[in-house]
């Protein structure tokens, strides 16, 4: 019955009375014997000291909060959402690979791509619906179309993309149909429709991979929002790496050249832009290094880098090498999505990341004004 949000209260500060320590340089709980506590000052990093292995990236500064409680709320989303980000990316990249394979005569890669897209899409839709507070009302998303809502835009793109990806995948089943069906109307639709459907899906697919970055950034969660200039590139890189990895794993080495190149290009783009993104984010980059999110981000970088090296060295020579490198790239992409997700949630739970950047903005140029 207690429906205080997960983000509002149960992630309170680790130091008791974190909201006090008026003007002292030692925020330790025992040293804060000031009358009252609300609205006092505490140091940046007062919470993360040591416990989370957080390295102070900026000189300690002071900020004020209401008993250390969050200013903005973390999303009520569970792991379905980062899973969706990952699976949607795999589906999008797979659609691109299958379309290219279709046009350049690589049937095995085409098949992998089409099935990869369909499975990725189906699982991501399940994740999306499961995450709703009222799953039975998921179709209410189709009442309106709003450019101000990335979730609405995404829903409509998936509504367009889904049937196309499904038709393209169904085309792969045609050879397995009994002869009567294969040569009947159904078979003809599948045979004739698969290519145009697959190609159209491939045109929509990149938008599916990149809009998910806007989905996260168009919020008040400090880390997600501050990443908004770079995150779409990180996400399309991650999607390319993952889908390339899948293509490498499920396609004979001789046909998987484009998958390897997509994986390499995507992984390098992801690693490079992610680095620049963090440099541009100031204090809101901290949650990407702290705690669970930091672990995931480090794992992502290691796995992706290993995948790159593996792909370049052995990806085109041995099947085992391709399998291992592809798996590392997929895992790296998944870790990235979960890491970015959790960092944003953590940034919402700590008032520091809301208050300090806004204070700095105020001190630099006064309050934000539109006119």
């Amino acid at each position, binding site marked *: 019955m207690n429906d205080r949000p997960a983000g509002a209260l149960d992630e309170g500060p680790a130091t008791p*009375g974190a909201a006090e320590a008026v003007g002292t340089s030692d925020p330790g709980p025992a040293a804060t014997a000031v*009358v009252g506590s609300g609205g006092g000052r505490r140091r940046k990093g007062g919470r993360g000291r040591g416990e989370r292995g957080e390295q102070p990236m900026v000189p300690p500064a002071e900020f004020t909060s209401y008993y*250390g409680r969050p200013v903005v709320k973390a999303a009520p989303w569970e792991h379905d959402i980062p899973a969706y980000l990952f699976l949607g990316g795999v589906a999008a990249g797979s659609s691109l690979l299958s379309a290219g394979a279709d046009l350049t005569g690589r049937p095995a890669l085409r098949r992998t791509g089409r099935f990869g897209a369909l499975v990725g899409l189906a699982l991501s839709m399940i994740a999306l619906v499961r995450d709703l507070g009222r799953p039975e009302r998921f179709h209410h998303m189709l009442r309106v179309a709003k450019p101000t809502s990335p979730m609405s835009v995404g829903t409509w793109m998936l509504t367009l993309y889904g049937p196309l990806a499904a038709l393209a995948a169904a085309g792969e089943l045609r050879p397995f149909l009994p002869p009567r069906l294969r040569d009947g109307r159904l078979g003809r639709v599948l045979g004739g429709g698969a290519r145009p459907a697959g190609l159209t899906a491939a045109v929509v697919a990149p938008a599916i*991979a990149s809009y998910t970055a*806007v989905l996260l950034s*168009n919020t008040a969660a400090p880390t997600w929002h501050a990443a908004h200039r770079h995150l779409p590139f990180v996400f399309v890189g991650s999607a390319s790496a993952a889908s390339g990895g899948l293509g490498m794993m499920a396609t004979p080495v001789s046909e998987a050249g484009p998958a390897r190149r997509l994986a390499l290009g995507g992984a390098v*783009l992801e690693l490079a832009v992610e680095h620049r993104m963090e440099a541009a984010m100031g204090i809101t980059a901290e949650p990407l290094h702290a705690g669970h999110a930091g672990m995931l981000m480090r794992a992502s970088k290691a796995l992706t880098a290993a995948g790159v090296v593996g792909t370049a060295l052995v990806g085109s020579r041995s099947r085992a090498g391709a399998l291992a490198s592809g798996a590392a790239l997929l895992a790296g992409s998944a870790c990235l999505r979960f890491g970015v997700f959790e960092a944003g949630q953590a940034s919402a739970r700590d008032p520091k990341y809301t208050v300090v950047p806004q204070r700095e903005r105020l001190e630099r140029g006064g309050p934000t004004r539109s006119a």
Partner: protein
Amino acid sequence: MSERGTTSWYGPLDPAPDAGWTEAPPRKGFFTDTSICIGCKACEVACKEWNAVPEDGLLMLGSSYDNTGALGASTWRHVAFIEQPKALGPQEAGFAGTAAGPPGSDVLNRTADSALTGDRTALGTDSSRLEVGPAGLGAVDLGMPSMTLPGSVDGAQRTDFRWLMASDVCKHCTHAGCLDVCPTGALFRTEFGTVVVQDDICNGCGYCVPACPFGVIDRRAGEKGVTKNAGIAQKCTLCYDRLGDGLQPACAKACPTTSIQFGDLDELRERAEKRVEQMHAQGIPSARLYGEDPCDGVGGVGAFFLLLDEPEVYGLPPDPVVTTRDLPAMWKKAALAAATMLAGAVAVFVGGGS
């Protein structure tokens, strides 16, 4: 950024006509004058009663007289309570020269804090897991008879002291992040310029929750059929039903000190300006308005405040900006990234090789 100038995604405007209402009444809102709030929480109770908002936990947070904690799906008014070692204008706390007592608030804070971080049961914190260590309850000085003044600490003197109280609520932003990102149209702009959730439309996607720059709206936890509107985003409606009948919202009606004032926003803004001038003249220079400026990052709010300290002291963001301000830039980057991916995919096939 000026390229957005003509869109209604950002900047000062009257929200109801902008949303398509043709004969909208004057915009309605709250002016919450926190300087006369006595922290009685009548507003919290009236809101719950009128709107049939379910229980929001029976925790004693211990950090202050605020046991409500924060706004949420089942907390539409929240009275913040702040204790500060500061003087309230020319008022005299009467503590001059008296000995300072032990920092009892440390113990309380520690208890509250572990309550907030402990594993929670359905009704709140699992108290068996509270971490009240040796520095906690065990070490409380009960002020038993001794040679010194009861509770005095090293001859320390008491500091200045004041209480701040403020009844927080949904701001009913001119540019409401929650409404902008809602993918079902469940959140809508009323003819009064307020922002309201339609319970029968919301599917609980939860997007509005991180989109609100004030941390107001939340998805109600609980089981469908057991808890009212479980799984649905919930927040203050500015008593949409009462407004329709020409009544004022329940909280404003119940407020015994007129700290919560309801009315036409234009008129409330004038009244608030005068009140601030008056307080400055009375020697309280810290009085300031929060959210009244139509040119601020959210286009001004419908429920604005008179505060006596910085906004973050009350748990409010010091310089809120609606996330949608940056959305055009985000869409551009996303389009560019998508184009990059498409071009990359073409290149890996055209590039030759196996």
